[in-house]
Structures are given as C-alpha cells and as structure tokens.
C-alpha cells in the first residue's frame, strides 16, 4: 500500500500537474506514477462534482437537489473512466502508441485533479457572489476544466509518444470506439437477457408440467 501512496508519488503527482510535459514523460519511462493514486483522484473528482452540484449557491445553481445522487454519479464517473481508458488503449495499441494501460489510467486520472480543485473552489466562491457576478464563477470553472483537458491531451500525447495531430486523431477514434463499446455492451446484455429468458421459460414449463 505504501508503495502506491508514498510521499514521493504524491509529490510527483503535483509536479506532473505543474509540469505536465515533463511529468508524463517520466511517468511513462521511469514509473513515477501510481495507478491507485490516479483512481483515488477520479473518485475524489466524482465527489467534488457531486458536491458542486449539490452545494453550489442558489444563485448559480439551478439544479434540483432531488436529482443529485452521489453514488450514482460515482459509478457513472468510474464507468466512464474505465471506458475511456479501455477504448484509448485499444485504439492506441493499433496505432503504434507506446503507452501501457497503466500509463493511460494515470494520464487521465491525474488530469482530473485541476478539475476537482476548481469545483471545490467554485463551490466556495459561489457562496459569496451575487447574480451579476456569475461570470467569475463560470470563468473559474472554465479555466480549471480547460486545464484538465489540456493535461489529459498532453498526458496521452506523452505516454504514447505522439505528435499533437495524431493525439487529436486518436482521441477522436477513441470516442468512436467508446460508442462502439457501449453499443456492444448493450447488445450483449440484451442477448444474454434473451438466453436467460429462454432458459427460465423452459424451467417454468417443466415446473408446470410435473
């Protein structure tokens, strides 16, 4: 456990956030990152996301608190994270990407940190702003999310040793692959359901005949 969450790993994560180019390079080549830490960051991001939706001030937040479910959102964020990593890995495997699954997981996981930070900051700031000062809040969130996306982009670029153009192309294909995976999962669950129904009806038939 200590290996994954050691002080050095934490420090290196913050180094990566401030120096993404360099940071991600050594994550790939010197194993300076930690997958459990990345997953922890994703979980924290999910909580920050829910907290923002639930606790951001009435002035900026039009959501019905009854619609927010932290557990549901945690599962959703984790599922999306898994899907993104798997589809990116499958695409980059075919496109000469150098990154391993764990590098991708770390690249995406670490990139959620700035987003979590601005979500928390935004939630705090929203408590002290009035209606016409919403711009600050929106700007803050926008900057944080943009930084996170850029980090993710750089991360994927560095761990696969791609050019920027190729990264964007693979991201697009990743997105398509993501949809295909979702489609296949739905298809499979549907078919399994049908098979299950078949066996169940056979079973009920037998039960009723005896």
């Amino acid at each position: 456990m200590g290996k994954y969450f050691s002080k050095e790993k934490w420090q290196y994560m913050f180094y990566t956030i401030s120096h993404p180019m360099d940071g991600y390079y050594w994550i790939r080549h010197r194993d300076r990152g930690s997958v459990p830490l990345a997953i922890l960051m994703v979980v924290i991001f999910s909580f920050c996301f829910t907290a923002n939706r639930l606790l951001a001030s009435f002035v900026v937040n039009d959501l019905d608190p009854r619609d927010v479910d932290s557990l549901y959102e945690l599962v959703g964020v984790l599922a999306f994270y898994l899907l993104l990593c798997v589809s990116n890995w499958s695409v980059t495997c075919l496109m000469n990407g150098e990154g391993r699954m764990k590098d991708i997981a770390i690249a995406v996981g670490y990139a959620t940190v700035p987003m979590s930070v601005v979500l928390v900051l935004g939630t705090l700031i929203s408590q002290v702003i009035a209606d016409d000062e919403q711009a600050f809040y929106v700007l803050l969130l926008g900057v944080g999310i943009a930084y996170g996306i850029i980090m993710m982009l750089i991360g994927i670029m560095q761990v696969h040793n791609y050019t920027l153009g190729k990264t964007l192309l693979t991201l697009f294909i990743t997105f398509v692959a993501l949809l295909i995976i979702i489609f296949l999962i739905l298809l499979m669950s549907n078919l399994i359901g049908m098979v299950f129904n078949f066996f169940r009806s056979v079973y009920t038939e037998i039960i009723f005949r005896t």
Partner: protein
Amino acid sequence: MKRFKPLSRIISLCMAAAVLSLSIGEEVHATSLPYDTYNYDYREYIHYTPAAYVPSTEIGGENFTYNGEPVGRFLTPQDLCQADDGDIYVADTGNNRIVVLDSSMSKVVNIITTFDNEGTEDSFNQPYGVCVSENGQIYIADSQNHRVVVLEKDGTLVKIVANPQSESLDDGYVFTPLKVAVDYADRIYVIAQNMFEGIMVFENDGKFASFFGTIKVEISLWDKFWKRLATKEERTQQQLYIPTEFTGIDIDPEGFVYASNIDATGVQGVRRLNPRGEDVIKKGENKNVGGDLQISGSSDYSGPSQFTDVAYRSNGIYSCLDRRRGRIFSYDHEGNLLYVFGGLGTQMGTFQLPVAVEDIGGRIVVLDATKAAIICFEVTEYGRLINEAVALRFDGDEAEAVGLWERVLELDENNELANTGIGKAYLTAGDYVQAMKYLKLGMNRDYYSIAYRRYRNEMLTKNASYFLTGILILIVAIIVIKKVVKKKKKGGAA
C-alpha cells in the same frame, strides 16, 4: 445491563418522535371535495395546497319558474355573462332563448325568446354567445341565423350585425358567430366559426372593421425541412398549418381583450390583446400561461390543457377554464399561477363539458353544457388571502400585503408567491438576512441577489477594520517568516 436502560429508553423516545413527526408531515388531502387544489412550484412539481374555492351550488333551469310557468331544463347552454346591473344572462342555446337571472341566481327575471324585427316577430336559432355592454344593451351571437342581434334590456331591437363585407373575407364566407364581447366604445368583438384570422371587430354602426389579435403560425425548422423533402402529392396529404381558433373572450375595465385559445404545445392558452391587437400578456416565472405543466401521457386525459373560456376577475387576476381536465387556472397580472382547482366527473362541483367561466360577485361560476347547469364556487380563507394579497401587490402596496402573505404561509408553508412577497417586504425594510431567507424559499434569484449584495456590503463596511487589520497582520507575518527562513538557510549554509 442496568446502565443501558436509559439509553434504550431514549432511543425508543426518539423513534416515537420520528414516527409522530412523519405522520404530521403528511400531505394535505382534500377529503370532502371532489377535486384537488394545487399549484406548480419553481421546479414544475405539483404542489398540493388547501382548497382555494369550494363548490357551493349547482343551478339548473329546472329550479326556476317564470310567470308561473316552469322554466325547464337548459339544453346545451353555451355562454353566460353578468351585466353591470348584476343580472346574469345565460345563452340557453338548445332551447333558442336567453334566460336572465337576478344577481343572486335565486329567480328568473326575464326570458328572451322573440323580439320585434321591423314589425315581424323574430326568434333565435342556436344563440351561442351572449354579452351585455356598459349601457345595458344585450349582444347575442345568433349562430345559426348567422348574425349578432343587439337588443335593449326590455327586448326591443337596436340593430342586427350580419353579413360582414370586406376584401379580406372570402367570397361566399358564411358568418357564424360563436362568442361575442363589447368594449366601452360599443365595438363588437366576435369569435366566428372557422375564422382563423383572428377575432372579428365590428364598429358600433355594425360595419366590419378588421381582424384582431391574429395568432401567428410558427413552423419549426424541422417541419420546413420535411416540407422540402415531400413531394407535391405528399404535401397535399399533410395537414395544413392553420392557426388555432379563439375559444373565449372577455374584456377588462381598461379595454384590454382577454382571449383564450387552444394551444397544442400547452405554452400559451390565453392572450391579453391591447387595442392594437398585440399580445401583451406576461408569462411569469415558468414562461407559461397554458394550464398544466405536467402533461405527458397518451390517454384522453393527458396532453396540454384546452382553454375554452377566460374570465377577467379583478386586480389583474384572470381565470381560464380547461375543458380537457375540467380545471380552472387562475393567474395574476404577472402570469404567476395562483391556484388550480376543479375536475371532471358527475359529482356536485365537477364538470362534464365546461364551456364558460365568469366571476360573479367574487364567486367563480362555471357553465356546464352537458350537465346543463351553472356551478358556483365560493372562495375559501386560503383563496381570499391570496386574492387580497395579489390585489395589494397589483396596487403597489407590497408592504401592506405582508400580513396576508404570512397568513397564507400558515395555511400553505411552501407557497412561493407568499415567500417572495414577504422577502420583498423585508428587503425594502432593510432586514436583508430575513429577506434572503424568504426570497430563497420563494426561489426568486434576482431579488435574492439584490438582498445578498446589500447584506454583503453591510458586512464588509461593518467589519472593514477587522479585515484590514487581518490583511496587515498577514503581510507582516509573511515578511517575517521569509526573513526567518532566509536567516535559517544562511545559518545552515554557514
């Protein structure tokens, strides 16, 4: 073991309290009424409230005699209206007559079946709408005789409006008036059958003047796209894009025309037309004056409300009658929904085919064509408080209204209008903390922000010395720490 006894006792006490509080917090159920009274909150959830109006009586023609003769059941009556002198005119369409009741609806004072038309006795054929002008003249939309008959109160003929002539009317157009209204200048507003261009306006000499309040047809981009793709044959098969017809009409004392129409999208079922025929209605917080907001489903009972009549009441309040679910929606002048009540059914106080609504002496009165009855609703404490508070706000006395709103809150804790009203009053009084509390409960973001900004400024000016001292101390501390760290480093190096 003994030590744990009080603990278990406390736990059981807590549970009992929880159970009790649950049973107290239950929804309010209207037990004796055949319908629910409700409103929509900011999030468009249905919010049940105490009854605003309760049914008092149902009056049919069979209850009355006139000159010793029984009046007899109404037959598909279609309209009713109240004259300024208090008499109530009912268009008893199926019996081809106008029945006049006194203001308390306890006796029939007149029945108009015939009138003297230049020496010959003339009668009505399906009189569909009726209206009385300020000087007491009766306007009758005599639908199957294709004319509007204007009579004096004693039944002598004033004029007949028929056969409108205009370039904008098709050749062979048959004028079939359904509903009629008169303004202070004796201009006649007529809703005619199959007339999609709007309300027909006639000058006081009976000449057709113009169309009024035409509803514009909005074709979405998507429909346009499909129209493009369709072939000529397909296009002839498609339904035409024609505007909806108006269904009911009323005129407020300022001369604005309230007209209901059936909106397939359920957004706007009523219009407030200024003298130029432009719609100037305010749609309120939910951007909707179309009745029910929760309209999903596929049964006959679902879908957008269909407003069949509108009645201007007083102080900017108007009520619309929905024939699909038999509900009455009351809005204030800002378009806020005040209360919704009524329902379909055969019980006393419910409707089968409601056709007209009117405000008669503070009561809401609905005419039902199938039941052939006039159904009266009496205002309750809750409804009266809301009406009065809205009236005060309409006059600009928001501070006066606070007492009323507070009593509304006693009956209906989550009433957003009441919370907003109280919040605004606190805001003007300068109590920003209370104002923020109530405006937040009333979901009024704009006024909440105003209150919050003032509160924040107040806090900042009050505590400016602490803030500035704090910042000063912080700066000094940083400088000192930096110096200490530098010294330590130097010391370490040396």
